[in-house]
């Protein structure tokens, strides 16, 4: 009997597998997307190497493209006791068709498979806090009504949730924060809109900040998030909706983040010499106009970077407080990263590594 994990070779999927190997004695079926046998073999080798001894004899890697109806033909449903659905397109800029095909239709197919698993005790969807879409104020750990969405990523993950809520499966939904680092040390491996925005400021390519300084930001680490997954999929933890996020009182605001970011930048000689100014917070229309300008600056770095930031910018005007009472009740010993210390460490790493373009030593980081 084992746990089926989709997207097992993805950024969070890999880390969730590692955490689960440590905390359970289960066997695992790791579903990865592969175009052919060669790609599947390469992914299998990579996973074997990353998981090391912990995975020996406990892990089976199978090819599974959830955009195809026969995606899980190689998996015996009688052997699956739990499913962790991590496969998704997580780009904020994903187009509607891709989001529907991968995030919605893929979930529908997986749910269909799940219904064929006679001993399934838990289906866990890795979702996002931003399935709340345009909701503002307190956001409870409940099923969300449709309040509209800022991008097709949010919308598709919400649609996936809705399908599963109505599926009758033994469902847990883990709504994850924006992952900005590997762990509290601030090392960044996977870059997203968060890092791209800070990059624009460092290089003096953007001087407008979308959003309001008081907007809370739900930020986390891969370590925190995968530890949450490993804990919350345990059979003894009640199924439910969980916001995997720091307590509201421990949440950074946008204004705090920007101030802290520039405090870190100004410790760097290269940045300080250029006398760049802190950004100006602008209204939504102005940011939309800036995005429109950037779209016309073809071939330059602004166009590409703003394109990654733009689909999320509107959220920075929508104050949300993600409640996490259910998480705290289900995971009494949980410890979310200290938001200020984490942001400081991440900015330090970004500057030292120039956004991944140069190697980082701790000595160098300390010197900044």
């Amino acid at each position, binding site marked *: 009997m084992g746990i089926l994990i989709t997207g097992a070779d993805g950024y969070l999927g890999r880390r969730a597998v590692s955490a689960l190997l440590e905390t359970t004695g289960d066997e695992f079926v790791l579903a990865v997307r592969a175009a052919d046998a060669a790609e599947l073999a390469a992914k299998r080798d990579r996973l074997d190497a990353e998981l090391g001894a912990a995975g020996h004899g406990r892990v089976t890697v199978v090819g599974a493209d959830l955009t195809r109806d026969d995606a899980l033909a190689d998996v015996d449903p009688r052997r699956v006791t739990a499913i962790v659905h991590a496969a998704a397109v997580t780009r904020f800029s994903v187009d509607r068709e891709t989001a529907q095909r991968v995030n919605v239709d893929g979930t529908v197919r997986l749910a269909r498979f799940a219904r064929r698993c006679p001993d399934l005790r838990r289906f866990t969807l890795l979702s996002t806090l931003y399935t709340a879409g345009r909701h503002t104020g307190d956001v409870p750990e409940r099923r969300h009504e449709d309040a509209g969405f800022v991008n097709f990523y949010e919308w598709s993950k919400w649609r996936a949730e809705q399908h599963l809520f109505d599926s009758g499966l033994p469902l847990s939904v883990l709504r994850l924060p924006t992952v900005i680092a590997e762990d509290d040390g601030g090392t960044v491996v996977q870059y997203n809109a968060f890092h791209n925005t800070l990059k*624009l400021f460092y*290089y*003096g*390519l*953007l*001087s*407008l900040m979308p959003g309001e300084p008081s907007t809370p930001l739900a930020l986390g680490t891969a370590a925190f998030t995968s530890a949450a997954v490993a804990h919350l999929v345990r059979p003894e933890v009640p199924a439910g909706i969980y916001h995997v996020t720091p307590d509201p009182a421990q949440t950074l605001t946008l204004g705090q983040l920007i101030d802290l970011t520039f405090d870190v930048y100004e410790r760097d000689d290269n940045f300080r*010499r*250029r*006398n*760049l*100014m*802190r*950004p*100006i917070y*602008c*209204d939504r*229309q*102005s940011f939309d*106009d*800036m995005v*429109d*300008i950037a779209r*016309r*600056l*073809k071939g*330059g*770095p*602004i166009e590409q970077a703003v394109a990654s930031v733009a689909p999320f910018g509107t959220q920075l005007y929508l104050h949300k407080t993600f409640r996490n009472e259910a998480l705290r009740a289900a995971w009494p010993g949980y410890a979310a990263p200290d938001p200020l210390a984490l942001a400081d460490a991440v900015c330090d790493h970004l500057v030292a590594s120039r956004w991944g373009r140069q190697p980082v030593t701790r000595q160098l980081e300390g010197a900044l």
Partner: protein
Amino acid sequence: MSNVYVSDFVYALGSRKTHVTESEAAGRLLSSAEDLESAGFAWHHLCEPGESAYGLAEAVTAQLAESGRLTGIDAIVYATCLPLNGNIGDPGEFARTRDVKHLMDFPASRLQADFGLTDAVVLGLNQQACTAMPGSVRLAGALLAAEPSWRKVLCVTADRFPDGAIYEQAYNLISDGGAACLVGREPEGFRLVSAHQITNGALGQATDDETVGSYFSFTHRLFRESLDRAGLTVADVDWVVTQNTNDKAWQILARLLGVPLDRVWFPSMPDAGHIISADNIVNLAQLIASGQLRPGQRVVLMMAGFGLNWQSLILEAV
């Protein structure tokens, strides 16, 4: 500077008017014509091969002479965006003779001689890029403050791009052009309320994207500091006369600064694009010509340029 006045705004453009699509076809642009048109650009003016920057300076000065205003000039401040337009000598002669005097044939001196301004001393200003015109007015005001016997300063700016140049800078469509005005003690035109400049030399070799990237924060700062220096608030401003840049840029800035968009004035942009350091004068002249300006109204002139420099003037209509 409360007893210094700025008046007699004149300008001249390169004689060949060309549509942005034609310039795209001719390889004079970096962006597509479509992108520049979406930013509000349409036409621009280029000098013909035999037409010089000095010719543009001559043209604007001639307008002042013809109107009888070119009298009692104590100084000429001759401003160029491109330093190479501050020499009308032939670099080829220097190459042939190795005599540096061919690199010091100054247009300001030529202008003084050509217009018989024999009592005027000359000054050149050529390291403020597109902000050189407001810079020259500021300098003229300071000269009048320092020289009690002086009555009037002629400020001239004139630039043309070298043959073969790209006529696009920082995503702006460029026109060759010149402009002039008079700065004096007689209460006419506008009272010079204040002038302000920010220079960030560390961005002296900024890329086009860095220039765009820093535009909003520094322009915002320039405007705020300009008002502070003058002891004014946004409510005291009636018009903001800008440079000709992407029309959405000032839609954004107007919101950020609390200035009504219908008071942001850059009507020459579709016809001429960014006229190097003459934008402010061209747009101010067109504001006067529109008949909308009233005595006592305050106008803020704003320019950004390489260097990087940002300069402003606050004027009060007489």
